[in-house]
């Protein structure tokens, strides 16, 4: 946990200045780092100060924090969780609507990328506290996710409003068994009147549990008990119920006429609630021209109506429908485009590719993100190729993260693992960012192919796991530097003892003059001592190779073999450092860069697995 108690008053003032000074990506990271270090806040005053600063960083901070979340037990994301949950509490205080909205949008955006379900549930729990109408559309998409639909439905329940009701109703109409029960419960809690027709149908279901839930929900909707109605909910236009009844009796023409009239009036009056209630009825009753109706609605200036139309459109998935939506996308208003692109992905036809490809290159980030989601939903070789090709051109962190996560979730992505070079080595860094590495990413930076630990840097772990391998890299020390290459380490343990650490050290520094032999550069820390004298001075690049074959570790520095050890033998009867060292017998694990509060740079790090 991050908890350093420096002089509170002066320290807090200083880093608040830092935090507010810059909104650049560098500034956000630096400010975040400082603000996270003091969490959890000791009292209300400190909480307000810290979280005001955090909230001022806006949506980029929420996005960065969300990137730091790890599944339980897989990492130390406690500071990020204190930060995100603290923000949710802070922005829901009275009079902070703009902050609340920015925070909620940041979290909702983070939910757009596929994540570990527990991390997604944590984010949804924050929206249960802080989410508002702006979250309905992104959260509604998760109603289709088998792991998250319940949590998503609960968020929609607390947000309330006709858009939430419409989304839940649409989800109910598409689902069966356990999910339907959840959606019915949510619709009952919202007392969402337009659900009545669907509930009536379900009340006659063969499934006893489903029928019982539907009846209970109907009883609440039909009771019209003012005491139970949610505060401030206006009464639904009674013609809606009339149109439902007409439809139920098979009088489609009359139902279509009535629903159409109500819809047109509602649109003219900007009454989203009534329009959203009328649209599905009109769409169901219409014998012809449904797609025209939905396309017009999908271009509505009212986001609730657009969302309702696109939800209904998912049921019309013929190739010709897809082609029509592709043409629609060419001239659709910009605020309608993200929804349409996601719809195209959901409809599942390759004919959607032109529109999605165009969306990837849009000037609008919202459109680009939607195109990525659409391509991810569509799947297939071409979609995967388009996404992979887009990755180097990502304009924002959110886009890069979404691209990475979407591509990695696709089976076709296996083809994109970097191919080995002529000698069989695969690069471990892409030269631009820390893709492929997790842990204290805030403590490292990448520039022009060089990865450096910062002074605050702690451990950075490879996502991938290796057993036997040859690792090659160049490195450059600063004066007095101390780092280490962890090999075969578990995530987040103590690299040196839970795995092994090949020491990276400025041997020449005065402070390092009298260390134990197994503490110098190239040592298997605590176990086997290296030959000294081949390390270049601080500021110059060195070349190193580490060969790990079972218990046999070889370290070659600037062409000289400085260590050749069998670590199991070397640690018999006991390791030199005198402690338990379970990592000596591990056969595989992650690589780690073990930052020890100094600046060390690496380049060209590449690996050749030997298994």
């Amino acid at each position, binding site marked *: 946990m991050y908890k350093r108690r420096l002089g509170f008053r002066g320290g807090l003032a200083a880093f608040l200045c830092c935090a507010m000074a810059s909104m650049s990506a560098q500034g956000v990271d630096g400010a975040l780092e400082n603000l996270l270090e003091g969490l959890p806040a000791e009292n209300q005053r400190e909480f307000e100060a810290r979280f005001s600063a955090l909230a001022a960083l806006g949506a980029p901070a929420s996005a960065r924090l969300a990137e730091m979340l790890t599944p339980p037990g897989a990492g130390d994301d406690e500071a990020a*969780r204190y930060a995100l949950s603290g923000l949710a509490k802070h922005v829901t205080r009275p009079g902070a609507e703009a902050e609340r909205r920015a925070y909620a949008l940041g979290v909702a955006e983070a939910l757009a990328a596929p994540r570990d379900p527990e991390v997604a549930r944590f984010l949804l729990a924050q929206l249960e506290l802080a989410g508002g109408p702006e979250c309905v559309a992104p959260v509604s998409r998760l109603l289709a996710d088998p792991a998250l639909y319940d949590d998503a*439905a609960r968020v929609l329940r607390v947000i309330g409003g006709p858009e939430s009701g419409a989304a839940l109703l649409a989800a109910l109409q598409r689902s069966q068994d356990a999910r339907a029960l959840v959606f019915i*419960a949510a619709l*009952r809690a919202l007392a969402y009147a337009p659900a009545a027709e669907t509930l009536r149908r379900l009340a006659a279901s063969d499934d006893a549990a489903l029928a019982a839930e539907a009846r209970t929900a109907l009883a609440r909707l039909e009771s019209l008990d003012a005491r139970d109605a949610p505060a401030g909910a206006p009464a639904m236009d009674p013609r809606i119920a009339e149109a439902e009844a007409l439809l139920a009796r098979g009088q489609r023409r009359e139902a279509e006429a009535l629903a159409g009239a109500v819809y047109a009036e509602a649109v003219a009056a900007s009454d989203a609630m009534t329009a959203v209630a009328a649209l599905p009825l009109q769409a169901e009753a219409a014998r012809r021209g449904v797609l025209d109706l939905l396309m017009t609605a999908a271009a509505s200036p009212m986001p609730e109506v657009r969302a309702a139309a696109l939800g209904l459109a998912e049921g019309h998935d013929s190739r010709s429908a897809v082609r029509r939506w592709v043409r629609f996308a060419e001239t659709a208003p910009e605020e309608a485009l993200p929804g349409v692109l996601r719809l195209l992905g959901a409809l599942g036809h390759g004919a959607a590719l032109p529109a999605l490809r165009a969306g990837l290159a849009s000037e609008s980030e919202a459109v680009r993100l939607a195109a990525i989601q659409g391509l991810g939903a569509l799947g297939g070789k071409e979609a995967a190729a388009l996404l992979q090709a887009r990755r180097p051109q990502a304009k924002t962190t959110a886009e890069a993260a979404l691209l990475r996560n979407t591509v990695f979730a696709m089976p076709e992505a296996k083809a994109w693992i970097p191919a080995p070079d002529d000698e069989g080595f695969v690069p471990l860094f892409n030269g631009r960012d820390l893709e492929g590495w997790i842990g204290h990413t805030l403590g490292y930076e990448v520039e022009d192919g060089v990865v450096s630990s910062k002074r605050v840097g702690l451990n950075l772990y490879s996502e991938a796991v290796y057993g036997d391998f040859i690792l090659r890299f160049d490195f450059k020390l600063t004066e007095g530097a101390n780092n280490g290459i962890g090999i075969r380490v578990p995530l987040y343990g103590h690299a040196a003892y839970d795995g092994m650490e090949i020491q990276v050290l400025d041997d020449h520094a005065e402070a390092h003059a009298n260390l134990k032999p197994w503490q110098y550069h190239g040592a298997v820390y605590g176990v086997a001592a290296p030959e000294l004298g081949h390390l270049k001075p601080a500021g110059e690049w060195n070349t190193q190779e580490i060969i790990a074959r079972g218990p046999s570790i070889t370290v070659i520095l600037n062409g000289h073999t400085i260590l050749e050890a069998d670590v199991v033998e070397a640690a018999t009867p006991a390791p030199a450092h005198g402690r338990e060292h379970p990592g000596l017998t591990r056969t595989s694990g992650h690589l780690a860069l073990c930052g020890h509060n100094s600046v060390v740079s690496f380049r060209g790090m590449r690996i050749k697995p030997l298994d």
Partner: protein
Amino acid sequence: MFTIVPRKALGGPGHTAPSEELTKAVIGVGGMGRGHLTYPGARLVAVCDVDRARLEDVLERTAAGVRGYHDFREVLARPDIDIVHIVTPPHWHGVMAAAAAEAGKDIWCEKPLTRTVAEGRAVARAVQRNGRMFRVNTWFRFRDNFYSFGTPVAPIKKLVDSGMLGWPLRVTIGKSTGFDWKFNWVGRTDLRPEKPPAHFDYDFWLGPAPYKPYHPHRTHDTFRGYWDYDGGGLGDMGQHYLDPVQYLLNKDDTGPVSVEVDAPQQHHDAAGVWRRIVLRYADGCEILLDGEGRETKAPYIEGPEGKLYKGFESDIPDLERKLAELPEPAPQVTDFAESVRERKRFALNEENGHRSCTLVNLGIVALRLGRNLRFDPDTERFVDDPGANRLLDQPMRGSWHV
């Protein structure tokens, strides 16, 4: 200790025929639940638990006629059961109590009555709508010596009602006045997911609570450390300590108008420690929950005219004689079997129990949010704080509801 005695062993007038005996079921047979098995007044006929090992263990130690259940709804469906004891963690109390009331059962529910204020109000409505008898499992307002006083609450009530302390009053609840806030009930923030044991239905145990991966520290003996199920030491002891205060201050039909907290930022999942919580009423009465033990010299209750310390020490001269001359407080129904048979509301029932549990839940919401809050005891909602109101009434998982 109540034992089941066969009818033929009883003789003469005054015996209770089995057909007139009240019957009970106990839902939740963990630590507290096993205590409920032998509470007097009704014959045990059913036990229920989602941990099969605990259930079977208890069945081995009860009479042959007691049946075991996994699903509490089957218990509620039995027409021959009069009273259900709800001894689950608090996140289930609301759902089970409301369902039991709808099923026509009388209810003996563990404290804290409910995990949220909205559930408490819904339970009270369900109990009243169905004409059921209800009691909470705390008792200091009517029975037993009250912690460090060496006396029950009754003489304290006489003192308050007499006006000898003046008005308004301030009550301090902490180490120095004889109350322990049980800060051992903190949750862990480093839980790694584990597989639940085969005999434990974790999904059912969670019920209305959000899904989180299983870890033994979340359940069984340590659930109090997690906001999803309870509220740390405040949730554990709060209603024991605060229900008598509402009784003393004549506030059984109302509640505080503000809550202030002094605590570190709380974790989103694990309940932590706190330093101080202050609840204030519209008339100036105040309850100070002293977590730190800072108020070393405070009396338990003080007003402008007098003070009462633990051990029943006071600065009012000749107090015992003066109290002896005063009438006793109004009588209360203190036998639940009598309450059930005669359909007379119990001393600590769904209404005043919900009101005193509300004090606990106000503290918990303020702690979790990390800010001071104002409350309207008539609408039972926070004033001008929609975020706080989201913690008053939280949606449940699946299709569970109150």
